[in-house]
């Protein structure tokens, strides 16, 4: 018996929602960022599952591009967090409220 497609999709949905809860709940900017990476990984799993079950290599190539863009995004995002920490001495997103009305 093979592992059905829905098993992979449900696992991916669960990981994505764990990432969403992490982004919505935590105040530490680094952990929010890690939750975003978790969401990206969940989406990668979805792409690969569909690529396997539909016999299409497009899914795997897209995962490759997602990884490249994620790497670029992490580099820039962490640089921003470092710059914020230098100015504000904190990575607590609740403290970054200059634009709040």
């Amino acid at each position, binding site marked *: 018996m*093979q*592992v059905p*497609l*829905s*098993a*992979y*999709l*449900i*696992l991916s*949905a*669960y*990981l994505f929602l*764990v*990432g969403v*809860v*992490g982004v*919505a*709940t*935590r*105040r*530490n900017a*680094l*952990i929010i960022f*890690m*939750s975003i*990476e*978790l969401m990206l*990984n969940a989406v*990668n*799993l979805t792409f*690969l599952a569909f*690529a*396997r*079950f*539909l*016999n299409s*290599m497009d899914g*795997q*190539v897209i*995962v*490759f*591009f997602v*990884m*490249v*863009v*994620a*790497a*670029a995004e*992490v*580099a*820039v995002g*962490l*640089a921003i*967090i*470092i*710059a914020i*920490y*230098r100015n504000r001495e904190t*990575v607590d997103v*609740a403290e970054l409220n200059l634009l709040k009305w």
Partner: protein
Amino acid sequence: MEILLFAGFATVAAVSGLLVVIQRQAVYSALYLVITMGALAGLYILLEGHFIWIIQIIVYAGAIMVLFLFVIMLLDLRREEVMWARRDRGQILLAAILSLVLLAQMVLALGRSYLPAAKAPAALAEGFGTTQTVGRLLFTDYLFPFEVTSVILLVAMVGAMVLAKKQFK
């Protein structure tokens, strides 16, 4: 056999994924995320991603997470004293409830197998998921996105260096 492997990797990924978001110290979250990515790499092997799982280990677990750990080390963060502040409690509860509802909806929707492919997965092409196939696609059908990603990486490098440069007064 495949089911056992899937169950093992999926359980590890699910548990460590959950542990990523509920740690007090950022470094523990990063380490659990590394475990999650390793478990996902195992799942990618089951999905015939012979090139992608290696890239996952090298790029995600080996480079991105190392970058995270470097930044955590440089910022010298304290243990988060108040994880769920009183004034945030309402928002956190709302996020948790809505996520659970969405998860239930997704499980119901994805549990059915609409696609005929879900019941009988298509026979795979020769060399599916191998490095040769991915490479050939990257240099033929996906040549333009491939070149664009090189520009993206260059821009990200320059941007990160400019942002994190020490400001000399």
